[in-house]
């Protein structure tokens, strides 16, 4: 592919993404299927609808919670974290 590769971190791991790719897609490509834990039952959740409707693939991006991994574009140096309930 002609695109440039960029890198961001997910928790402690370094993840590669193509420029323009979503955080969620890059994480799935890196075999990271669980993105958050739910508030009450602490169940794992990942990408479900993939188009920004369901709000299930929530991650913390640069300290801001409730970001949808499936639509937020991966940017170099981004700090992405598993969302635990409503917290970083």
């Amino acid at each position, binding site marked *: 592919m002609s695109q440039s590769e960029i890198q961001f971190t997910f928790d402690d791991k370094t993840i590669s993404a193509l420029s323009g790719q979503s955080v969620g897609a890059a994480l799935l490509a890196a075999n990271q299927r669980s993105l958050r834990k739910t508030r009450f039952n602490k169940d794992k959740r990942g990408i479900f609808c993939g188009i920004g409707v369901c709000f299930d693939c929530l991650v913390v991006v640069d300290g801001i919670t*409730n970001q949808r991994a499936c639509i937020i574009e991966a940017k170099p140096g981004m700090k992405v974290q598993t969302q635990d309930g409503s917290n970083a």
Partner: protein
Amino acid sequence: MKNPDAIVIGAGVVGACTALSLANAGIRVLVIDRGPVASGTTGAGEGNILVSDKEPSPELTLAIRSRDAWFEIDTDIGGGFELEAKGGVVVSRITKGISDLKKLASLQKENGVETIELDASTLQEAEPFISKDVNYGVLYPGDAQCQPMLAAAQIIRAVKKRGGQFIQGENVIKINSNSGSVVGLTTDKNTYSTPIVINATGTWAGEVAKLAGSYLPIMPRRGYILVTSPAPKFINHKVYDADYVANVASGEADLQSSAVIEGTASGTILIGASRERVGFKNDLNIAILRQLARQAISLFPVLTNIQLLRAYRGFRPYAPDHLPVIGEDANVLGLWHAAGHEGAGIGLAPATGELITAQITGNVPFMDPMPFSPKRFKGGEHVAV
């Protein structure tokens, strides 16, 4: 139940509490609502149970008793409505506000309200995310909160278990009387006989009084509440601006708002409270949403990145003198009113039920009910009683 001892019209929190109090006194009670449980003002409330927002007055006496009564009901029926003794923190950032707040708190203290003054550092301890420019507040450990819809539903559920009945989807079209005394009522579907009808229809109480040929001056005041996405526990208490206390007592028509902010058991943050007199107009006022958001952020800057999810509107019932109406009708015997609690209906509901029940059963009420009597209004005039 075609011949109940008493019929409560309205399955909001005031109707539910009144029915529970009557049922507990051994009265066979029927609750009728044109819609489902809590489909009026109760369903659009924050669930405030406050002792902090009232000056020493009969209403404060009512509020103090009611707050305790909520915890007794919680034990009595087995909970299930997210009752939480979270406490309230009232703050002010202006010199005049601070001195007024100090004065109010000391008066409240003399009247049995627990108050704890907070300075800059104890305030930061109580609310670590509060804006650094807030240096003075008063903590009211007595303030509490519940989920009002669940409260009404759980209480109605208990009433049913105690021999009462709830009928929904019937619209009362006439309150029947004979020589000035209630004998029953007629809905769009049925007729019921009863010597006692309690009008707990909140904002619509004036309309219901008319069905008995009587009169009650209750009007709607529109209030908005913003609900955010679930957030970490940024806010420990119910936190509000001292200006709120002034607004509650205000009779001006234009929009007023001052932030009342709190977290809930589900993680969402509630932001109130605006008040405007626009009748039953139900459009979405974006300017109010913005003003509430600005006030909330100014008190808690951490809310900047938290998302607004819903905004709901409710119509708070109020009387010309901003006091609830609790007692027997001025013209029709056996017709009782429990309405007009404005933004305090959830908090004042249990004590309202107790006052009504004590008077109906001929017991001594916990306080003099006269200040709340409907007899203070006559033909549109506000008369002293």
